[in-house]
C-alpha cells in the first residue's frame, strides 16, 4: 500500500480503534516524528482514561428498584425527583453552572453549545445553497462558465477577496458557473461544477472569518456532505453527494488552487 500523509484526524481514529491495521506502523512512525502530534495523542488518551475512570463506577452501582419495575411491568412508577423536576432541567442547570465558572473560555466557543460555531454555519449555508441550486436545471447559476473572467472579477469584487475558479478537470469536473449569495452578515461566492454524468458539486467561499478550523460536516443521512476550511480572512466549503474519499480529494485540489489564487 502506498504511504499516505497522516493528520490530526488519524489521531482520533487510532485512539478509537478505527485506523486500518495495515496503516498502524506508518502511523506510529509519523507520530514518533511529530512531537506536537505525539503530545496531542498522549493528552487525548489521558483524558479518555480519566473519563472512563470517572464513569465506570456507575456500572457497579445497584440498579434502582424503580427501573427494574418499569421493565417488569409493576407500574405505576413514580420518578425520583420530588417536585417533578424534569431531568432536562438539571441538564440545563449543569450547562449554566459551568458557564458561570468557565465563562471566558465558553464565550469563545459558543455559549450553551447548541448555537452554531462559525464552521457549522459555513457548512450549513454551503449545504443549503447546494441543495437549492445544484438541483436547478436552467437557473443553477447567475453567470455561466463561458463568462469565466467576468464571473471571477464580479465575485471577487463582491465578496472581497481574489477569487480564482479552480480547475477540477483532473477530478472530472467542469465549471458550470457561479452566483452571489448572502452568508451570515456578508456575502458568499458559489461556484458550481458538474461531471460528465451530471453529478454536481459546489464551492462556497466567504471572506469573513476569525476562526481557524477544518473538517467534514453532513447535516442528515444520505444528504450532501461539506468539506470545509476556515482561516483568518476566508472560508471555503466544498459540497457534494460524492463518496467521502472522492469529495475530500476534489476539495483538496480546489482548496489548494483557491489558496494559490488568493495569494497570486
Amino acid at each position, binding site marked *: 500500500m502506498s504511504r499516505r500523509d497522516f493528520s490530526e484526524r488519524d489521531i482520533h481514529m487510532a485512539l478509537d480503534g478505527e485506523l486500518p491495521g495495515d496503516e498502524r506502523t506508518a502511523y506510529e512512525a509519523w507520530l514518533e516524528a511529530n512531537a506536537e502530534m505525539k503530545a496531542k495523542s498522549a493528552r487525548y488518551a489521558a483524558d479518555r482514561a480519566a473519563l472512563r475512570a470517572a464513569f465506570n463506577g456507575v456500572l457497579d452501582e445497584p440498579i434502582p428498584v424503580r427501573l427494574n419495575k418499569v421493565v417488569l411491568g409493576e407500574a405505576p412508577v413514580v420518578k425520583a425527583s420530588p417536585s417533578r423536576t424534569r431531568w432536562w432541567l438539571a441538564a440545563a*442547570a449543569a450547562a449554566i453552572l459551568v458557564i458561570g465558572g468557565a465563562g471566558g473560555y465558553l464565550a469563545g466557543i459558543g455559549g450553551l453549545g447548541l448555537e452554531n460555531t462559525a464552521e457549522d454555519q459555513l457548512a450549513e449555508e454551503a449545504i443549503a445553497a447546494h441543495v437549492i441550486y445544484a438541483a436547478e436545471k436552467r437557473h443553477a447559476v447567475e453567470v455561466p462558465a463561458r463568462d469565466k473572467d467576468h464571473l471571477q472579477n464580479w465575485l471577487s469584487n463582491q465578496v472581497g477577496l481574489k477569487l480564482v475558479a479552480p480547475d477540477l478537470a483532473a477530478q472530472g469536473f467542469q465549471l458550470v458557473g457561479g452566483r452571489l449569495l448572502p452568508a451570515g452578515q456578508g456575502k458568499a461566492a458559489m461556484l458550481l461544477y458538474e461531471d460528465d454524468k451530471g453529478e454536481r458539486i459546489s464551492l462556497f467561499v466567504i471572506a469573513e472569518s476569525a476562526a481557524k478550523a477544518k473538517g467534514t460536516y453532513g447535516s442528515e443521512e444520505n444528504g450532501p456532505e461539506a468539506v470545509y476550511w476556515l482561516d483568518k480572512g476566508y472560508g471555503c466549503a466544498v459540497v457534494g453527494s460524492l463518496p467521502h474519499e472522492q469529495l475530500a480529494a476534489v476539495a483538496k485540489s480546489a482548496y489548494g488552487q483557491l489558496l494559490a489564487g488568493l495569494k497570486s
Partner: protein
Amino acid sequence: MDEKKAAILGEIPRLRRYARSLLRDRDSADDLVQDCLERALVRLDNWQTGESPRRWLFTIMHHLFIDQMRKVNRRGEAAMLPLEASEAQAAPAEQVESIASREIVEALQAISPDRRAALVMVAIEGFSYAEAANILGVPAGTLMSRIARGREELRGLLDDTARRRSIRIVEK
C-alpha cells in the same frame, strides 16, 4: 419473564452510565433512563429480532435527550430554573469524587450536547464509529468532526480549570 425484557434489564447498567455522562445528576440521569425504558416497552414490537438491544435502547435514549435539549434551548427555559434543580446539581453524587474526576465530569457537562454524546458513545461506551453514527443518526463524517471538536473542547476546558486553580493557589 420473556426474552426481550431480560435483554433490556441487562442493558440498564450501560444506559445508566451513558445517562450519567450526559446529565451528571444521579436522579435526573435515572429519570432519563426511566423515560427510555418506558418508551422502549411501548415500542417493543418495533425492536426487530437480531437487532442489538444495546443499539436499539441507546438510540431511543439519545433521541429523548437531544429532543429535550433542543426544546430547552429554544424556549430558553434554562434561564428560569427552579432553585431545586440547581441545588441538586451542586451536590451531585454521594460517592467521593477525586478532584480530577470532578473536573473532567464538569468539563464534559460544559461541551455541546451533540459533541458530548458523540464523544461518550465512542470513548466511554466503546461503540465503533459506524455504530455510533447509526445511533446518533448522523453521517460518519459528522460523527468524526463532533468527536474531534469534543475532545478539543474538553481539553480546552480542562486547561482552563487547571489555570484557574493555579491562579487561586498563587493568590493565597
